[in-house]
């Protein structure tokens, strides 16, 4: 492996995806550097979530390859990808509504625990030890870190939107991810909540040594915290590079101006 290849945690190469005649992704290639925050942006329908679902393993690409940490993910089922250290959150929050915040977060660790059915039925030995270790770690590392002590026993269904997003992040962190994929982490949040979330994302990168790949529409946040930006339009990568370079790219401006409001925000004073 070359020096440059070792520096890359996720390598997407020539990925194409089609649903019937609709081409969702066409020859998408980019790579995510270890320890970076990489943002995928693009107008609605550009294929951002399709790209995430392909990386998660829900969709099988028609061609191309995705490599995680130098290992091809082809033929790897989603649960196996979780075990390798690939975690994600969803655009419209996929928490388990009937469970408490604590149980939701505990579920994140599932793939890394070993309690079997028989251990579970008696709750002695390994099952008990593992559960108590998990509880301690979640309390001390995740719940404290994300400032959600006050809601740990609340059912998820009773929480407001902003907190649910934070709980989903907590659950993803419990997965001990090496690459954390966030699908619109601040969509629908107000300014204050957005700033909180941006701070958490930066802290996760620094303190947990996790690489972050996110899809986001909030250009202010994308430009503020990302190291690298990939722009998708109609399923194709039309630009990639540092935030400033991407912002100045004429192809990007054209794509966004064509899409309306976002274009003005991207080229307007707010983004700067």
């Amino acid at each position, binding site marked *: 492996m070359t020096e440059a290849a070792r520096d890359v945690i996720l390598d997407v190469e020539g990925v194409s995806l089609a649903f019937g005649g609709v081409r969702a992704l066409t020859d998408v290639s980019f790579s995510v550097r270890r320890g970076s925050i990489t943002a995928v942006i693009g107008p609605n329908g550009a294929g951002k979530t399709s790209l995430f679902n392909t990386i998660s393993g829900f969709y099988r690409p028609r061609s191309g390859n995705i490599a995680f940490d130098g290992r091809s993910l082809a033929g790897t089922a989603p*649960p196996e990808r979780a075990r390798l250290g690939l975690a994600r959150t969803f655009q419209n929050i996929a928490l388990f509504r009937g*469970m408490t915040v604590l149980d939701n977060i505990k579920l994140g660790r*599932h793939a890394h625990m070993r309690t079997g*059915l028989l251990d579970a039925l008696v709750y002695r030995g390994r099952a008990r030890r593992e559960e108590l270790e998990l509880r301690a770690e979640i309390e001390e590392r995740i719940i404290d870190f994300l400032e959600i002590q006050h809601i740990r026993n609340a059912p998820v269904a009773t929480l407001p939107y902003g907190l649910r997003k934070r709980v989903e992040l907590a659950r993803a962190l419990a997965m001990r991810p090496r690459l954390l994929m966030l699908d619109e982490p601040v969509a629908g949040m107000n300014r204050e909540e957005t700033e909180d979330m941006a701070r958490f994302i930066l802290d996760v990168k620094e303190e947990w040594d996790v690489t972050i790949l996110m899809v986001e529409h909030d250009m202010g946040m994308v430009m503020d915290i990302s190291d690298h930006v990939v722009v998708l339009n109609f399923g194709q990568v039309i630009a990639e590079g540092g935030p400033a370079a991407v912002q100045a790219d004429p192809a990007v401006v054209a794509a966004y101006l064509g899409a309306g409001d976002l274009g003005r925000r991207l080229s307007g004073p707010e983004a700067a």
Partner: protein
Amino acid sequence: MRIGTLKTSYAADEALFDTRLQKLLILLACAAAVLFPFVASPYWLFLACLCAINVASATGLNILTGYTGLVSLGQAAFMSVGAYTVAVLEIHAGTPFLLNLLVGGLLTALVGIGVGIPSLRVKGLYLAIATIAASVVLHFVFAHWPLTGGMQGLSMPPARLFGMALDQPFQLYWLILPVTGLMVLGAANLFRTRVGRAFIAIRDRDISAEVLGIPLLRYKLMSFAVSSFYAGLAGGLWAYFFRVVTPESFPLVNSIFYLAAIIVGGMGTILGGILGAVFMTMVPELLKFVAGLVTPFYPDALALLAPVRTIVFGSLIVGFLIFEPHGLAEIWRRIRRFFHLWPFRT
């Protein structure tokens, strides 16, 4: 009023029973269960055993339907597998009853896994129909296989412990109640661990369960296996209790009875399975009691018992679905909360 639950360890916070009152109540219940056979009449002991068998089976169905979200109408058929296995072993092999029960449970678990295989593709109503189909197949097998005695079924000798026959409710009580107790405890433990959480995750949203590293098919089949293991054990206990097993012992209506029990008790709670099964077992007794009261004024009351029973069952299910969808367990929680907050109100 409770002003706080102060705990000093995570173990204390993860315990099954977390308040002192709760522990006290459990101890009292255990003491009552031990003393009960010495004061109760054989008829009440009979009912207690029946309740316990139904609790065991309903708890099993609750694991599959209440916690994992896979609707099954095959619980009674799974029980018949356990019952026949125990009967055949008792008649032909004469092995110890605990071994027979275990074999019955394990064999039923295998059958359950087989029935569960379509569950990766079909859900809800379609899965329910698939389990009905499995019930019909099992019924056919038991009615025609020489080993299971055809339509006459099997009459089996009682369980024996140190040469003593367990053939009266008083003796069977000491077999059935502890086994049921252990089964319920096992189910409660299950949902304190990753395995139980994975079941709930599959019920609530199976796509994101996969992203968290939960292989859907394996856990769905595991849920089927545990649930039918419970059904098999319950069926085995049933066989030792009645000692005659025929193809008509476990009709489809019984599967609906168990489903009704967990709906009335509260799906997805351990307490719900217990309360629901006891409640549904006792409703006919209550009706008999009421019929006895009105007989002096209305002599035909007893003759109407059977149709009235069906109507009452039906209205209970509908009533709970509309007015108390979380079942008796939720009522119990409300009562607890009332006392925790007293003298304040929510």
